[in-house]
């Protein structure tokens, strides 16, 4: 039976009443144990939503569950965040250069960080815990990827290989590999046993204007399939699926900015203003055929069934499946997050 997405009636909205525009969402993360969702947005704080919260009428947005703003950095915006796999910690990285670790108690992060370090020479863009919760990987403006001991934020390793801003980092589910991607148009696969580079995937879509426009800014988001075999790379104007072991491209679609794999099924979601969800047929992922001159042809689209198309408006960022895979969260530019049940 094909998978199906059903929109949850509640919308999740955050605003602090300041006259400065909506809290445009950037990244969303489900809490692994509790019915909570956190999001980095256009603010120095993190938006915290109670997914079981009561709704109230919000002008212009209908019935919404109002979020709170927590984990304050003093200046800049929180750019990256992640929740520890055991659910007891939340890590935030900001444009203020800091990485902060907040303990999670009673359904919310603490008011003060437990630990704080100056993590990068520039914005801390991406933050992710390893699946075993031992490490925390960060990346950002200084083109470095850094590995931290998640318990005390002691620096374990600095990985050099990118030439520009690093936008995203992701671990494989078995924790054996870390993948980083950035504005230089590269995705680099690192072995976590040695922290050595195992391969570099040239995604492209980067020019000398780099961050001027998203379409020329290389890799924006990364995601790895549940079995660690496929790597999804989202750029400013295309989505590519690569065989993580060989690095070869096996599929491509004209979708941009966002990508997420389901944690327990062969489901894939991708796209910014329009999100598409596929029930993909992994057996049919294959490198593009070559023509008579040996030149590779264009890769094929994602094999399988497209089960949903969701329009959510321009610059809608934040896309993640919950730990069980029963829900998917979509951030939006207007300061809201929408939830869909996956069945």
């Amino acid at each position: 039976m094909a998978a199906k997405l059903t929109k949850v009636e509640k919308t999740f909205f955050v605003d602090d009443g300041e006259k400065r525009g909506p809290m445009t969402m950037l990244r969303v993360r489900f809490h692994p144990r509790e019915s909570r969702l956190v999001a980095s947005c256009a603010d120095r704080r993190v938006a915290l939503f109670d997914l079981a919260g009561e709704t109230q009428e919000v002008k212009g947005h209908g019935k919404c569950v109002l979020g709170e703003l927590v984990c304050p950095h003093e200046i800049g915006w929180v750019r990256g965040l992640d929740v520890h796999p055991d659910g007891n910690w939340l890590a935030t990285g900001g444009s203020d250069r800091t990485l902060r670790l907040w303990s999670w108690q009673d359904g919310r992060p603490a008011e003060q960080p437990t630990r704080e370090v100056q993590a990068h020479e520039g914005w801390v863009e991406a933050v992710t815990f390893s699946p075993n919760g031992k490490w925390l990987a960060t990346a950002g403006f200084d083109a470095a990827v850094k590995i931290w001991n998640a318990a005390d934020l002691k620096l374990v390793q600095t990985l050099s290989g990118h030439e520009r801003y690093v936008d995203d980092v992701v671990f494989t589910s078995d924790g054996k590999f870390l993948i980083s991607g950035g504005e230089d148009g590269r995705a680099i696969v690192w072995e976590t046993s040695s922290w050595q580079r195992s391969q570099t995937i040239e995604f492209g879509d980067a020019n000398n204007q780099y961050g001027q426009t998203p379409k020329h800014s290389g890799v924006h988001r990364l995601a790895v399939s549940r079995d660690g075999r496929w790597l999804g790379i989202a750029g400013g104007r295309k989505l590519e699926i690569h065989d993580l072991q060989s690095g070869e491209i096996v599929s491509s679609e004209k979708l941009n900015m966002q990508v997420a794999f389901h944690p327990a099924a062969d489901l894939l979601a991708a796209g910014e203003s329009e999100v598409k969800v596929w029930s993909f047929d992994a057996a049919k992922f294959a490198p593009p055929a070559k023509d008579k001159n040996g030149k590779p042809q264009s890769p094929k689209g994602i094999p399988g069934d497209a089960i949903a198309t969701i329009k959510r408006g321009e610059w809608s960022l934040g896309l993640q499946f919950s730990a069980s895979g029963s829900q998917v969260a979509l951030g939006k530019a207007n300061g809201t997050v929408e939830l869909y049940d996956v069945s």
Partner: protein
Amino acid sequence: MDSTAAERLVRLLSTHQETLYRYVFALLPNEQDAKDVVQETCVALYRKLAEYDPERPFLPWAFRFAHLEVLKFLQNKKRTNIQRSKLRKSMTIRSKNSLCPSHEHGFSRRALLQGAVAGGTLFGGFGRLFANDNAALARGNDKRVILVFMSGGPSQFETWDPKPGQPTGGPHIAIPTSLPGVHFDEFMPNLSRLANRMITVRSMTSKVGDHDQGRYVAQTAYNPSTLVAPAPHWLSVCAHEKPAVADGVPSYVMLGKDNFGSLHVPGAGFLGARHQALHCPGDGAGPQDLPVPSPVAIEDFERREELRRSFSDTFAEGRPRRLVESHDGAFAQIGGLLRAGDLFDISQEPEKDFQRYGDSNLGRDCILARRLVERGVPFVRVQHQSGLAWDKHRRAFQSQRWITSEFDTAVGALIDDLIDRGLWSSTLLVLMGEFGRTPDIQGQGQPGRNHWTKCWSLSFGGCGLQEGLVVGATNQNGTDLQDRPVTIHDLFCTFYKTLDIDPHKDLEFENRPIPLVENKLGQPIEEVF
């Protein structure tokens, strides 16, 4: 020597410049050395011109001087570095005292020579500098302007007036500058370092929030509807008031494309094509479709120009001369460019400069701007990217990082070089767009900032103005002015006064007085002088 003799020398050198240079270059196969020696030869010819018999061929006579100068050069080269250093110093002093009144021209003999080379028919410009009247003109026109226009409306929050920690502050943080207590955007490390050389205005206020009209006002001092004829760009006015001294050197050059709309690209307006900017396409390139300068190309051009002018004169008979002046002026400019040689050739600039200025169109245009002002072009407008690069309505802050960095790298290097090369005290550098951006991070596709005229920022400096000054202030979250409003008209009064141009002077168009600044509004920002 009388002026007739000097003019005769200029004409002879104009005709034989290339041959003379090739003769010297054959003996000294180094471009700069050959140019130096040719220059020395010209000085010698000038001194001995009274001995020249016009009935005899010029070149054999000139070659004798050139040969002697080559020998002299080679002898000098054998001397110790110390001796050479002393010699160059004395030559520099000599050139300062006798050749060029502008103190910048005295600092670098090579720059002077290159300026002369660019000055039309190789030494036509040099010859003119000998003439007393032109020397006086040079003294009167020893100020330059480089305008780097930040098209689209740069955000004051992400440049000169950051508000970190405020809800309106955005993700960028601020860094300290060389001025105690003053912070700029984190992606402006060079301009932060150089804040003590610049004037930062944080209290600009204007009324026009539309790109087309805003850019028109911000570059002409006129609202579009207040004048029957198009107002000239303020650098066209400057070119009109203080044209380039050297022959063949354009008075006003624009680098880069400005391809959004039409109204906002002010040209020479009622001043006519003669005062229009010479347009270069950007990325450090010179004018397009210009033949490679050579004696043959010049001769070819002059032959055609003679014919064209005869038609033009015939057409003009019985008609207002103004009808053909612009047309003639455009052709005259082409002729001047043909004679300007390598004026626009930035490939002659050191490779390390390209690294310092950054691998960007703006970086290469700033190198060209530097080259132009060094060689006598008084007014240069640099367009930072075409279209509306600073117009960050949407997806603003990540892309803002890059445009601000690109701008800071190129402009920071330009300021460093203007200072190092002794040009800072006579060059007005203006860094501005048409307006600022909203405190609200509303955008038209969040996150971004919309147009905002209530309070915004810009920066300028050099040309003997006060240094390290911050004019005006906004309130805590940048939503309103707090102190010392400065209008567009105040700004233009300030710029014109800096250039020793009466800001409330009248020009004339169709027998009507047209003031430089609309309705004679505004007052100079006195604290900057």
